[in-house]
């Protein structure tokens, strides 16, 4: 699963579907865990402060795009700051062996879990060896 270039400024136009606006949009890449199970791939991403409605997942031309906008609640005047919630953006190139119609996603406690099942023909099959 190869990662696509992650741009750091709005000038990079290599992303499909990322319109250029006057203000430089700021975003960070969320940390992810990706591991394989017998069923397929599991992608977990930390997206704190993101509501389900503000999460945009797309699979297009084998390109998985995670886009999320956290709702930053700032209760009062900031006294001390260690972080700032900005938009999340990350792209991965999918192997075509993923069954793109059966991808499922879950967002819980700020963690996104994506299940990317392997396509039927890519699953390991047991081959019986007959010894004669």
């Amino acid at each position, binding site marked *: 699963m190869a990662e696509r270039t992650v741009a750091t400024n709005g000038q990079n136009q290599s992303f499909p579907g990322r319109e250029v606006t006057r203000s430089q949009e700021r975003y960070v890449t969320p940390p992810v865990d*990706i591991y394989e199970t017998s069923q397929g791939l599991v992608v977990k991403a*930390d997206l704190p402060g993101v509501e389900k409605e503000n999460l945009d997942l797309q699979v297009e031309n084998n390109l998985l795009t995670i886009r999320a906008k956290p709702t930053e609640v700032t209760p009062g005047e900031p006294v*001390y700051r260690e972080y700032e919630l900005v938009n999340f953006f990350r792209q991965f190139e999918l192997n075509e062996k993923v069954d793109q119609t059966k991808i499922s996603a879950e967002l819980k406690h700020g963690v996104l879990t994506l299940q990317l099942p392997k396509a039927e023909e890519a699953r390991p099959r047991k081959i019986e060896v007959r010894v004669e």
Partner: protein
Amino acid sequence: MAQWNPFEEMESLRREIDRAFEGFGGRAEPSRRVAFLPGSSPRRYPLVNIFEEGDKVNVQALTPGLDPQSLNVDIMHNRLTLSGEKIGIPGDVRPEAFHRSERASGRFVRTVDLPVEVNEQEVQAEYKNGVLLVTLPKAEKAKPKQISVKVA
């Protein structure tokens, strides 16, 4: 008129020292843009923001993927302690099955010194979308008081 605030002085000194030692381990100081750095330093997890709102102090911590059962918020002598456990990947996943492993997991404790005295009885905490918000009402003596000036 500049006012000397010992709390602010101490806080800024502490921050200076933190900054000076942060370079150890070959990791640059996380910039504000970084929303979440896993395991950048165990001492600094989770990252917190502190807000002042009228007669309340709000502490916000970035804690995605916690086990809500393990989450503990304690307050003692104006010191807020957050502890809990971030859920990791199930143990039956073999190490060679990982393509990427960037999210740290495990237990954490962080202590935050509060800028004002708070009413410890009425502290509230809420965990939503991976963000913890602790609301601490200020103690009666820490609230600003209006003094009417008598004009003779």
